[in-house]
């Protein structure tokens, strides 16, 4: 008995020693800053002159029209972006999973390639492609689709479209890779059996592929949701949030509050925590809607 106990203790201690480094790192670089940011969100003031103002910042959130605009823009991206990326990613991955397709790896690489480009670099390229005298307008005009250039970046409606196109281009391949990898884990015999039973490609897709990919779809929709709620680089570099806040996202508003205006880090932290809250709520909803009962 005694020896067993001490052995257990020893094992425990060794275990703690092994994970201690990671624990210290996580506490110091994740939890501590998170706690500090939470405390900061109860303070207000310009720059270093912060004073404790209780819930004032949280009250300010509810009357802040710029924040409201940023939230509704971000949710617009979310509502369009996440389904588009998931459906497109699924569709492409099923096509590319077909073993009879030639140049499969070429297509896979081509579609995944945008994900390894730098966010800033691709944003800048998109900005020039979609500028008033840019390639997209010239192409459309040469095809006589449009008579005069579309103001892709300086018109409130088209600016949003430009952002959505850019983000779709950048991230679809990322989701596709997840689907591809899990598609390869689906036993081909299931499809064979379905075919023998007379199921066509559509039925196979909706009755076999989608249900079996459900956990992965849930995973990608949560990561895409989190990513979209934090969208920053594209907007900062393509439209700077304009014209007139038409494309401004929550993250960009945080940046503006911290660095573009007279710095109010307290309120910026409050806005950051509103994103945290939204992510938590949305993830719970997604788990409830898409998650399996048995997890």
């Amino acid at each position, binding site marked *: 008995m005694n020896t067993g106990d001490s052995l257990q203790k*020893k094992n425990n*201690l*060794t275990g*703690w*020693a092994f994970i*201690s*480094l990671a624990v*210290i790192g996580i506490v*110091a670089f994740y939890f501590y800053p998170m706690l500090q940011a939470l405390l900061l969100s109860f303070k*207000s003031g*310009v*720059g*270093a*002159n912060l004073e404790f103002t209780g819930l004032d910042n949280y009250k*300010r959130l509810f*009357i*802040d*029209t*710029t924040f409201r*605009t940023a939230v509704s823009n971000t949710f617009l991206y979310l509502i369009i972006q996440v389904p588009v990326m998931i459906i497109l990613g699924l569709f492409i991955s099923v096509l590319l999973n077909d073993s009879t397709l030639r140049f499969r790896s070429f297509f896979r690489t081509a579609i995944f390639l945008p994900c390894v480009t730098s966010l800033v670099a691709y944003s800048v390229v998109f*900005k020039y492609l979609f*500028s*008033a005298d840019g390639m997209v307008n010239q192409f459309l005009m040469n095809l006589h689709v449009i008579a005069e250039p579309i*103001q892709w*970046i*300086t018109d*409130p409606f088209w600016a949003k479209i430009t952002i959505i196109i850019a983000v779709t281009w950048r991230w679809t391949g990322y989701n596709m890779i997840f689907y591809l990898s899990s598609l390869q884990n689906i036993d081909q015999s299931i499809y064979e059996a379905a075919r023998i039973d007379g199921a066509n490609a559509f039925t196979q897709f909706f009755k076999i592929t989608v249900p079996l990919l459900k956990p992965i779809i849930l995973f990608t929709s949560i990561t895409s949701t989190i990513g979209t709620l934090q969208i920053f680089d594209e907007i900062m570099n393509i*439209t*700077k*949030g*304009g*014209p*007139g*806040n*038409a494309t401004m996202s929550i993250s960009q508003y945080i940046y*503006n509050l*911290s*660095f*573009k*205006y*007279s*710095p109010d*880090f307290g309120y910026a932290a409050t806005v950051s925590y509103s994103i945290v809250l939204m992510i938590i709520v949305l993830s719970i909803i997604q788990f409830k809607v898409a998650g399996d009962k048995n997890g």
Partner: protein
Amino acid sequence: MKKMWVLMLVTVLLLSACSSGGGGNTASEGEQASNEITIWAWDPSFNIAALNTAKEAYAKDHPDVKINVVEYAQNDIIQKLNTGLNSGTSNGLPNIVLIEDYRAQSFLNAYPDAFKDLSSNFTASDFADYKLGPTAYDGKQYGVPFDSGVTGLYYRTDLLEQAGYKAEDLQDITWDDYIQIGKDVKAKTGKDLITLDPNDLGLIRMMIQSAGSWYSKEDGKTPDLAGNAALKEAFVTYKAMMDANVVKLNSDWSQFVAAFNNGDVSTIPTGNWITPSVRQEASQSGQWAVAPLPKMAGQPNSVHASNLGGSSWYVMNNVPGADQAADFLGSTFGSDKQLYQDLLNGIGAIGTYKPAAEGEAFSKEDEFFGGQKVFADFAKWTEEIPSVNYGINTYAIEDILVVEMQNFLNGKAIDDVLADAQKQAEAQLN
């Protein structure tokens, strides 16, 4: 024994993790004798070039002082300053930093002890009056005023001539006359009058400053939008310009520059710092001239001079070498007449140091501008710029106005536009 080992390992790890958070600031930092000055600035062809000129001038008398000029984008400087100053450590901050005048009050207000009082290092009254508002705080002079953002109306003489306009026709005009010129030029040549970025209300800023008005009241904090007659007229003028269909939209600096380098627009009302970019297109030499800025018809105190941008030098208090840095600024940008001649000859940078304006460099004729003495004109206009307090909220208010401007262009009534902007500004700024 082994247990002890593990415990020790954990303790050491814990301690090393903690020590970085604890006593990071070493005491010796402040006492370190410094013969090295680090300076942050942006724009290699303008501010950095000016710094290098000043560095050479200073090196004549101070061969032992090493000056490091570091180039960052303006946004990066703001970000680094804010994060550095907020974390309470001066590690990694420079001795001297360039800050845009619109932002200066916000920095001086947000970090009261971070900047060095330079009142005794140079004579502030030697500089253009309108520069002293942004650079002084609480009765003390913190910034050494640098470049002038004095504005002018750059125009293509050849294009305007085709529409029947001569240099005299541009001398004492209002913005309404200006729009009329734009319509005529467009009818005759098909070229737009002006290029604007809908996210940037620089034109509005120029207009209201020419009438001695700003987005906030004299205290620099209270938003002054709803009852601001100059702002109202500026908005109406902006919309008139849009409605006249003489505006080519751009969405960033490079498109802005391309618009006039390609010859797509016939005028640029902006700050004099645009000169190097205009010159970039050598084939247009002799086709440009600069007229005084139009004034606002309905504002009795509006003048033909205004300011756009401009920046000044600041010394960081808590970085070792502050005194040396203050001396450098005082004896170069703060008092060196010859330096300002060199800046003009070499870079075309117009300073705001009054005694330098009599120098020969200012009276040079410029071939690119058809033999016009542009520097002399700009120097004259610099003295006429109305002084306003930019306050601490220029960019925050402008972001509100940019949205309301879109609403206004889409048909919302002007009084509602400004009243709503006022309400929002009051709710968001404190």
